[in-house]
């Protein structure tokens, strides 16, 4: 939950602001959880909508038995490899396209075609090519993350302040060195924005692929629990993967702010 300013909490003493903001941020979620608790078993049958307490017990159980961790590890491995590849390819391609017209002309049509396709729709194709398991999940995560990373790198690298480039040139920087000493540092904040946008997309793609094309991972666990009619277990797995995704986004934002202290 990002909060750039303290808003109306500005009137409070500074040391209370943070704690108060934390509480205020979580109030909507708390309200929904409380309503959910009351609705479950009254307005909606409890086996269709298990109560938060039941789900929490289920999560505690999952964590206690440790059963979930091997699946979580598999999912995170796929997430990491898929996202990592998309960063490696996307940054190079994005900067390449921005700085070289032939590269731009060559890849432009593919990006335009890939852009409107829901990447999740590629899961059956990925299965056809790579079977079931890590292969299709990595491929779908990779493809889903590629566009935000390419687009952010491409736009930023093509839009580097002319005067910065000239400044470097007048001090003797030439050729590839301009890329390393000016274009890349100027592009880094935007590359990080692309990665930040890609993280939730990666989780969407990951779980979607695992629902269909995997016998391991959190997506598989969600589907399996649903198929045997254990809806509280299904909810527990959904909550776990949501929390993990949230933790990654938040962790990444904190890390990013420490890396690019100069922005």
């Amino acid at each position, binding site marked *: 939950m990002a909060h750039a300013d303290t808003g109306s909490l500005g009137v409070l003493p500074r040391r209370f602001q943070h704690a108060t903001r934390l509480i205020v941020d979580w109030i909507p979620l708390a309200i929904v959880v409380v309503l959910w608790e009351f609705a479950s078993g009254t307005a909606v049958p409890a086996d269709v909508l298990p109560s938060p307490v039941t789900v929490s017990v289920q999560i505690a159980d999952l964590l206690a038995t440790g059963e979930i961790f091997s699946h979580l590890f598999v999912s995170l491995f796929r997430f990491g490899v898929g996202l990592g590849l998309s960063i490696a390819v996307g940054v190079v391609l994005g900067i390449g396209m921005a700085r070289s017209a032939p590269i731009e002309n060559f890849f432009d049509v593919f990006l335009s075609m890939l852009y409107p396709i829901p990447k999740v729709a590629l899961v059956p194709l990925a299965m056809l090519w790579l079977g079931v398991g890590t292969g299709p999940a990595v491929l779908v995560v990779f493809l889903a993350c590629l566009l935000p990373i390419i687009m952010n790198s491409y736009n930023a690298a093509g839009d580097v*302040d002319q*005067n*910065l480039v*000239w*400044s*470097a*040139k*007048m*001090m*003797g*920087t030439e050729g590839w060195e301009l890329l390393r000493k*000016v274009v890349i*540092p*100027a592009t*880094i904040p935007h590359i990080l924005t692309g990665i930040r946008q890609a993280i939730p997309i990666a989780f969407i793609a990951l779980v979607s692929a695992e629902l269909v094309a995997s016998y391991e991972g959190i997506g598989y666990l969600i589907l399996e629990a649903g198929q045997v009619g254990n809806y509280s277990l299904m909810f527990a797995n959904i909550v776990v993967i949501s929390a993990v995704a949230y933790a990654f986004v938040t962790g990444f934002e904190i890390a990013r702010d420490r890396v*690019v*202290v*100069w*922005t």
Partner: protein
Amino acid sequence: MSDGDISISNLEKVYDDGAEKTKAIEDLSFDIDSGEFVGVVGPSGCGKSSLLYLIAGFLETTDGTISVDGEPIDGPGTDRGVVFQDYALFPWRTVMENVTYGLEEQGVSKEERRSTAQRYIDMMDLGGFEDRYPKELSGGMKQRVAIARTLAYDPKILLMDEPFGALDQPLRESLQDQLLDIWRDLEKTVVFITHDVEEAVYLSERVMIMTRRPGTKKTVVPFDLDRSLDREEIITSDKFVTTKNSVWKSLREETQPEVQP
């Protein structure tokens, strides 16, 4: 001294964006002596910034030549340093890292880089801010860093593009005086672009007035102010006021709409 003179002959610059051609500069010839401080004023859009960037080697001439110390220029070079109006500091580098950049590119050792940079940082009253990033500095401080960065790699020629245009009056005045001290101490050739007639006359030894676009040299006003005086004495002196008025009148003719016969 024979270092840092600029010779411009029959310079022409046409911008061609494919759809239309815009002639920014036409048949401009002008010589600047080494160690001279020349102000350039002109109506907006007259090509004075283009002129500066052509001298810097950032832009290519369409016709004519620009020579530095008798050698026609070929692209940017470390004999010339530009100070931009928007500072153009590298935001990912600290003050110290910005100022050492040019020395880094020349392969100067780390200790020497730091000690040289420190000298210019101190000269620009930036001591204590070495490890700050540009975003943490005020506009006036950023411009002082930019000047220190340019001085540190010791170009013979300073090309300044309305460097104080974005700053408020007291800050401009103190930076103007700092620049005059530097110019005297370091014996640089300075080409200073401004739209402020008073600034041009206060700083320069000669002012070139440019015509409206396509810009060319309209006239050059030489003058000789007594630099031993302080600011107030200079700007109230008859010579300053007369010079300022003549530059202003000449510029005014270019900014007024043409009189229909």
